[in-house]
C-alpha cells in the first residue's frame, strides 16, 4: 500500500504541495482531482523522483520511495505515465512497448507482455511497426499505458490519461483502466481533470486544492457531496 505523509514540495519559491497525506490500500483505484495548478502533477512527479520533496515521506509497502531515482522505480513495481501523450514519436509502436520491459532483460517475457498489451488494445496490434508519431491522440494514450503495463507494475501512476481526447475515447480509456485494475489487482493513482469520469471508475477520491487536500473519501461519497459537486464537478 501507498502511504504519503505530510508531503511538502517546492518549485523554487513556489510551494506546490503544503503537507499532503494520503493513504491508498492495495488493489484500490484512487482518483486525484482538482483544478489546474492544484499540484496533481507535482504529486506524481515527486512520488517517482522527478521532483524533489522538501519534507515528508512516501512509502510503497516497505520501500521509502521519496529518495530513490526515477529509474529505480520500475524495479519496485511502480510505473508512472507522465502528463501529455507520453510516447516517443521517433520510435515505432513496437519499440515504445519494448522500452517498458527493457529493464527486465528478458526477451521472451517481453514478447509475452507485448501480446497481452495488444490483446488489451487491439488497435496497437495493427500498428506495431509504424512510428508512434503516426498515431492518433487516443492511440498514443493507449500506447503510453501499454508501455507502463509492459513493466508489470503493481502500482500505476497515471497523469491525465484523458487529456485532449474525445469523450468517447476517454470513456474507453477509463474502462480499460478500471478493467486492468480489477483483473491484475493493481493499485492505481489516477490524476484527472475529468473529475466526474474519474470518480465513476475510482474506489476512492482525493480532492486537491492549491496544494492541500480539500476532501477525501470513497469515490461514490465524493460524487454525492454537494460541496465537491459545486466546486469540481460543475453541477
Amino acid at each position, binding site marked *: 500500500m501507498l502511504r504519503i505523509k505530510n508531503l511538502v514540495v517546492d518549485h523554487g519559491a513556489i510551494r506546490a504541495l503544503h503537507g499532503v497525506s494520503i493513504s491508498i490500500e492495495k488493489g484500490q483505484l484512487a482518483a486525484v482531482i482538482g483544478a489546474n495548478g492544484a499540484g496533481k502533477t507535482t504529486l506524481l512527479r515527486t512520488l*517517482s523522483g*522527478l521532483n524533489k520533496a522538501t519534507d515528508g515521506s512516501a512509502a510503497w509497502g516497505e520501500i521509502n520511495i521519496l529518495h530513490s*531515482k*526515477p*529509474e*529505480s*522505480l*520500475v*524495479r519496485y513495481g511502480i*510505473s*508512472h*505515465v*507522465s502528463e501529455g501523450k*507520453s*510516447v*516517443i*514519436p*521517433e*520510435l515505432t509502436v513496437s*519499440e515504445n512497448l*519494448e*522500452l*517498458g520491459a*527493457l*529493464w527486465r*532483460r528478458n526477451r521472451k517475457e517481453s514478447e509475452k507482455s507485448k501480446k497481452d498489451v495488444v490483446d488489451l488494445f487491439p488497435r496497437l496490434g495493427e500498428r506495431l511497426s509504424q512510428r508512434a508519431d503516426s498515431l492518433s491522440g487516443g492511440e498514443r494514450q493507449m500506447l503510453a499505458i501499454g*508501455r507502463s503495463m509492459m*513493466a508489470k507494475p503493481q502500482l500505476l501512476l497515471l497523469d491525465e490519461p484523458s487529456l485532449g481526447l474525445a469523450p468517447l475515447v476517454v470513456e474507453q480509456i477509463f474502462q480499460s483502466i478500471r478493467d486492468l485494475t480489477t483483473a491484475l489487482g493493481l493499485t492505481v493513482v489516477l490524476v484527472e481533470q475529468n473529475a466526474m469520469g474519474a470518480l465513476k471508475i475510482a474506489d476512492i477520491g482525493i480532492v486537491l486544492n492549491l496544494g492541500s487536500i480539500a476532501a477525501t473519501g470513497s469515490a461514490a461519497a465524493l460524487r454525492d457531496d454537494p460541496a465537491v459537486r459545486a466546486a469540481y464537478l460543475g453541477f
Partner: protein
Amino acid sequence: MFEFINTLLIGITSGSIYSLMAIAIVLVWRSTRVVNFAAGGVALASTFVGATILESTGSFWIALPIGMLAGAALSSFIEYFFLRPLLKRSGEKTQEIFLPIIATLGILGVIKAVLHFIYGDKIGVISPPLSDKGFIVSGESIALSPLRLMILGVVLALMITLTLIFQRTNLGLSLRAASFAPEISRLSGIRVDAIRTLGWAISGAAGATAGILQTTNGAGSVTPEAFEFSLLLVFGFVAAVIGGIESLVGAVIGGVTLGIILAIILMYVGGSLVFFAAFIILILVLLLRPNGIIGVKGGRRA
C-alpha cells in the same frame, strides 16, 4: 573519365573518414546536446596511443582496437567528469549551447597541451599496414589501393556494427530512447546517465578510428598540432551538420558528399578554395534544408 573516377575514389575514401568523425559528433549531440569539439582531441590522443602500440607490437590490427578503446575511455572520462556536472548544474532545460561548446574547446586545448608534455617533439607514426600503390587496371594505376580498400572496409564494418547495435539490440533501443526522451526513458527504468556515458564512449571509439585512418591515409604520422586533425574535426562537424546533426545516416551521407565534392574541387578548381567550398556547400544545404539533409523539423529537444 579515368581521372574523374580516380577523383571520386579519393573523395569517397576521405569522405568516409569524415563520416566517422561526423558520427562521433552526432552521437554526442544526440546523447547530451553538446557540440563536442573535444572529439578532435580524443581522436588525436587515441591516434597517439595507437602509434605507441604500433611501435611496440608492430601490428596495425592490435593498434587500431586499442586506440579505439583509448578513445572510448577518454571520451567517457570527459563526459563523466566535465560535461555531466556542467549540464547538471545548468539544468536540462537551458537552450544555452555556447558554454558547453566553449568547455569542450577548453578540453581540446588541454588534451593537445598534455600530448605535447608527454610526447614532446616526438611524432606518432601510423605507417600504412597495406600498400598504398594503386591497383593496376588496363595498364594504368588507379586511385584505389589496398590501403584505401582497407580503410573503406573498416569504415563500412564499423557503420554496419553501429547500425546493428542501434537498430537490433536492447542497448541500441535504450540509446535511442534516452536521446529522444530522457524523462520517459528514466521512468521506463533506463539508467539514462550511464547510457549517455556509453554514447560518449562509442563516439570516442568512432573518433579514434577516424583519427587513425586519417593518419595512415595521409601523412602517416601525427603531431599534437597536426593541421590534419583540425581539418578532420571541422569537416567532420560540417558533415554532421549537413546530415542533420541528429542522424547517423545523415552523418554518413554528409561525410561522403563533402568528401566527393571537396575532392572534385581540389582536382579541377584549386586547392585554396577547398575550405571556402566547404562553407558554401554547408550554406547551400542549410538554405534549402535548415535542419540538414535528414533533419527533423523543429529539431526537437530530447
